């Protein structure tokens, strides 16, 4: 297996390299640059031009790309024009927030999806099943940002059960229990809002897999051999039905990192998704390119994780 990991990692390098060129070209193709929005008549255009020159924005793209990639491989992603901070430091600040949020969402997603999927699949065409599939259709139809706003309004403002913005109560000291508790408390509502929507795909997938597996010959065989109903479901059906879910796991992670964009902005939760969007509109190229690379690397990694998990869960599949 380690061989596979090594080989896949090696393949990743040219992939990321290609991605980086593409991203760089696309970023440069956007009209304007970080200085375009800086319309201030009291600043001499010559001074702005000098700053462009200093930042290397006037060089041809391949020169700019070379400057950027040589530094990037050394871990220096440049300076954010807007934040006046090294990009790596800036992303580092935001990444932990996004990771915690994604992790919480992931846990909640599976906590919701697995029981619902099992109930719905095992007792299909009952009222419980209809109720659950009804919910999944609603989930498919509801746009995440509207749903999140609704959740925020109901549980944040109307009932006041959850904090409505930020990642931590202002003024709590980092490193204390109160701080950690406050962080978790702040994550709950955004994570739940997102999980309730993203989980519906998994519920549906699990349901149809279970229904599908139920009718397979080996299940009939197992029943004929006198296996108890719970054994049939827990050992035979569930294990087989979990395969596609497991395969999906890696992609789920990547999807989450991207999917937090709306949630982060609605809950005023400073994370990477929000950083990505605002950096695009402000043409903060160094941040945009670094983030796209990060997302790219994450999705390639996600695919790798999915393959590995699949190999572990299903002995029939072995990656050579």
């Amino acid at each position, binding site marked *: 297996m380690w061989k596979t990991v090594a080989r896949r990692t090696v393949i990743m390098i040219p992939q990321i390299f290609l991605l980086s060129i593409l991203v760089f070209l696309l970023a440069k193709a*956007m*009209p*304007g640059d970080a200085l*375009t*929005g*800086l*319309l*201030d*008549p*009291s*600043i*001499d*255009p*010559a*001074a702005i031009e000098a700053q462009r020159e200093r930042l290397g924005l006037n060089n041809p793209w391949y020169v700019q790309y070379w400057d950027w990639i040589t530094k990037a491989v050394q871990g220096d992603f440049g300076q954010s024009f*807007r*934040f*006046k*901070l*090294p990009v790596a430091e800036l992303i580092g*600040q*935001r990444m932990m927030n996004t990771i915690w949020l994604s992790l919480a969402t992931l846990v909640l997603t599976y906590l919701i999806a697995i029981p619902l999927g099992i109930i719905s699949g095992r007792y299909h065409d009952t009222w419980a099943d209809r109720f659950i599939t009804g919910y999944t259709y609603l989930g498919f139809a509801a746009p995440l940002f509207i749903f999140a*706003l609704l959740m*925020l*309004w109901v549980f*944040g*403002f109307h009932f*006041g059960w959850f904090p*409505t*913005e*930020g*990642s*931590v109560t*202002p*003024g709590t*000291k980092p490193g204390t229990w109160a701080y950690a508790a406050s962080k978790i408390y702040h994550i709950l509502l955004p994570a739940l809002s997102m999980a309730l929507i993203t989980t519906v795909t998994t519920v549906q997938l699990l349901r149809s897999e279970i229904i599908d597996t139920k009718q397979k010959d080996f299940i009939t065989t197992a029943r004929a051999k006198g296996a108890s109903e719970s054994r049939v479901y827990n050992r035979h059906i569930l294990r087989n039905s979990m395969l596609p879910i497991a395969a999906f796991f890696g992609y789920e992670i990547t999807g989450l990192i991207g999917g937090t964009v709306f949630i982060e*902005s*609605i*809950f*005023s*939760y*400073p994370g990477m998704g*929000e950083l990505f*969007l*605002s950096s695009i*509109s*402000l*043409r903060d190229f160094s941040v945009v390119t670094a983030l796209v690379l990060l997302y790219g690397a994450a999705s390639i990694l996600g695919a790798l994780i999915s393959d590995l998990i699949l190999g572990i869960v299903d002995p029939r599949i072995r990656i050579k």
Partner: protein
Amino acid sequence: MKRKRLFLPLILALMVMLAACTSGGGNGNGGNDPAPSEGENSPAPTESAKPPEDDGLYSIEDFSNVKKNEGEPIEGGSLTFGLVSDTPFEGTLNFNFYSGDPDSQVLGWFDEGLLTWDKNYVYTNDGAATYEVSEDGRTFTFTIRDNVNWHDGKPVTAEDWLFAHEVIGDPKYDGPRYDSNFTNIVGMTEYHEGKADTISGIEVLNEKQLKITYVQSTPSLLTGGVWSYPLAKHIFGNMPVDKISSSPEVREKPIGFGPFKVESIVPGESVVYSKNTDYWRGEPALDEVVLKVINPTTVIQQLESGSVDLVDSFPVDQYPDNADMSNVEFLGNIDRAYTYIGFKLGKWDAEAGKVAPDPNAKMGDVNLRKAMWHAVDNDQVGKRFYHGLRWNATTLIPPSHPEYHDASNPGLAYDPELAKKILDEAGYKLNGDYRTKPDGSELVIHFISMTGGDIAEPLARYYVQSWQAIGLNVQLEMVEFNTFYDRVGANGEDDPKVDVYQGAWGVGIDVDPAGLYGRDAIYNFPRYASEEQDKLLAAGISAEAFDVKKRQDIYKQWQQLMVEEIPVFPTLYRAVLAPVNKRVLNYAIGDGTGIYLHQLAVSQDKPFVAEK
């Protein structure tokens, strides 16, 4: 806020794309300055937030910019300030370095400028420093008050003030402040280019006194032309200039001399301040202020539930639905901004650094421009689209500058029949649905406008329809903020396809419009120039313009000239609204109200909650 930059671009809808706004260094509403300077008379607190009239329209005249004080202040207390933004604040927490408006909102609580200004934006002697001007108007002597100290107890000195100038003038300086106000200091250019080790025009007289000599004496010096934010030399003195903005002393433990001290910061989302008992104006009434970033989509709920007492900006389009929110009082003020329609009349000559008007430009005929102004009904636009909270604009100096805005100048009124007549007489003949040029060739006018907000597109469409109604074939294109300014020529490369555009400017506290309409201004997007205008603009900042009457007359003439020549025409002026929880006392928006942050107090422990 307390920034002195002169003009800032505005996008059409404040609520959407605040990010884009901050790229321009703030949304230019400047109406939330919590520490305005003492004016000789503060506006009388009139009854504010009147119930809507029958037609559902509101008027800025019904709002006061000073909070009614109801109840007695309690001892101490804590207040929550909502920074309305869909992006976290950047965290460059020093006046000498920040660039976005969110940061300036964070800064305003713990730091301030040494000079304050009155409601006409003229520097007063009520601030942390006083000033005297020499006979020739070029040399300013500043004296910092003895009791002005940094939060760490060290005195704010003339040396600190000089240091701020040295850092901003340094070629390695990475902030946006090195502008014409700095190049106007004697010896600054030499220092900036490395030809001199010191700035010859700045002299430290003693610990608390500083003398600055300027190259040119203009009335603009008194309205925001002086850099008044010192930089603590005992903290930053040994740092390389290009490392200051990312240092922890700017980002994590920022320092100032304002009424509150920074207690703790969660990057991008919240700040807790405690009172600075050593504040030079006196000990603040509040014990604590909490600032938190809130999303524009939730601002109403935050206010209703009392989660925030104050906000830095309020989406005006949500006012009609929430005008009767029971736990807040809405304050209002006229924004230092206007929306306008511009006509491209030439190109930018980068070589010469001047505009190059083209007499043969498609929009070059003043009659065509005049007809297009007469064709649009901005009064109705304000009423229909903005419930009266934006209203018909008449001249290019908005009423936020009451001293210079010429209220007697009516601009050009809505009169489509007159518009048609003007076009007929100028030779634009109807040929089928649309008119042709006087030489008989086809006339297609390309109009671009910015996206953003729900109103942007319908509004642009309204203008197109109005122009089509007088027989002009106008083609609309909606573009995003960066693209828009790129194409109208923010980089000097004007897109020749653009004939007409709709933009907005937030204007600075100084009235001089040369940065937007002068011959050598790259932001003169219409690329208009005339000798008469050159004369007026020069006169407006000449020595004789120190006489306010004289200066008023000059800018009155300029406003009239712009109404006659119409390189651009203003469409709407706008209101800023600020909801304030009823428990908040001693609060005002706008300039020169004489109400300061250290007086801010609350009448009860918990905020009022809206009754449903």
